[in-house]
């Protein structure tokens, strides 16, 4: 792992290396990131970028971990076995972006209804219907 990047507070990782690196970030006392404060995703157009916000109570330090997955096959390992807060965070991202977290024990809709929305609202490919057929939520850019 890139120690300089960790010291600077931002780390980019490959999806296949994510689980291993995250486990080290929590278990290695040098890092000691015992909290996953937040988990979200950004639709970058060509890829989905997952954003993990870690915090260490021990060292009072923050770290931003990014991982990119493809739009066609948005799959990444679940970190819910490392931090339990990911159980909720990953379900939300699954609802909103349709990203599949492999190994999540219960990847059911959380904010979406039981059968899902039928679309993924926070993807850029989804536009708000808006009033009178406008596609920008009736609030044109």
């Amino acid at each position: 792992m890139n120690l300089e990047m960790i010291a600077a507070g931002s780390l980019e990782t490959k999806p296949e290396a994510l689980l291993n690196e995250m486990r080290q970030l929590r278990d290695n006392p040098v890092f000691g990131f015992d909290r996953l404060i937040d988990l979200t995703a950004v639709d970058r157009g060509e890829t989905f970028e997952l954003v993990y916000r870690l915090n260490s109570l021990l060292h009072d330090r923050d770290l931003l971990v990014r991982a990119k997955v493809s739009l066609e096959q948005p799959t990444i390992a679940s970190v819910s076995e490392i931090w339990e807060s990911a159980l909720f965070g990953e379900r939300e991202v699954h609802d909103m972006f349709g990203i599949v977290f492999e190994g999540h024990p219960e990847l059911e809709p959380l904010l979406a209804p039981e059968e899902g929305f039928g679309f993924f609202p926070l993807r850029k490919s989804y536009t708000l219907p808006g009033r009178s057929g406008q596609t920008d939520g009736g609030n044109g850019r």
Partner: protein
Amino acid sequence: MTVKLTHEGVTASGSELYCLNMGPQHPSTHGVLRVVLELDGETVVRAIPVLGYLHRGIEKLAESRTYPQFIPFTDRLDYVSSMCNNLAYCQTVEKLMTVEVPERAEYIRVIMAELNRIASHMLFIGATALDLGGMTGMMYTFRDRERILDLFNLASGSRLTYSYVRIGGVMNDISPEFVNLLRAFLADLPGMLQEYDDLINGNEIFQARLRDVSIVPASRLVSLGVTGPVLRAAGIAYDLRRKKPYGIYDRFQFDIPAGTVGDNWERYLMRVLEISESAKIIAQALEGLPEGPVMAKIPKVIKPPVGEVYHANESPRGELGFHIVSDGSTKPYRLHIRRPTFYNLGSIDALCRGVKIADVAAVLAVLDPCMGEADA
């Protein structure tokens, strides 16, 4: 969601498990939270939170609104502490734009945020008493909370949805009348707290209902991403106002109450103690309140530079953070809200396991969920 029972069949004691639905329309779920309880007799074996009944898609709506247009949406997140939401959002945009906020505005912001924390905790105390069967307590806390809402009404024109904190400062200056009423409120506050002590906190039955119920180790709460008073009750004195002082919070003297046992009683007590600490901050802010403008010179059309920013405040419920990705246009490319209640609700299963069904209402009450925020 489709609820799958995990412990189907018969337990070791020979009793059969059953399922009980609680909410989304239930007086003690504080909004539209649904919890599916799996029970062994009267003991909770598993509690499954079901969210989303108040989901409005605020994060998506943000993408078609300009930066100032989004401020009223933050009012509708945690609708009992809108000032804190306004503040967190505006500070995030200011961080993105590197705006310098005038001194007077900074002090007014602190006064408003801490007043709102007191109002939110007063509502919490009353609602908790109500959930445990004490109707009277609520009347007193709501009476006193109304004085704060009157102050907000005077400053912003609204009782609940203020949109008072703006990008670059605050909406308008506070009047001498506001300052006088605020001083009178601060003078009366110790009397109010004494009344709560006599009526609610000091009540033996009330204490017995909360003490030693739902003790969860701090390490588990840390893993669950729980923040705010619930985490502090477990002994971790983590408060963003102290750890990462935003605005001018580094100028004030105040204590961070923390618990030792981490039961429902201490979770409740944290809020009571925080009211006095907030009052201390307000008194100091009033003392140091400088003269001057309340709004920075910011462009008419707000176009933050291309970039990404995260900024978090200590809201009455925990860490409230805004993550904004800007593409240099007038509207955010992506806006994500780290809602404290959302992650706190993730701990319901851990908090409820092993407690009696009558105490589930107490567990939910001291978690102090606000569904507008959790569902966004």
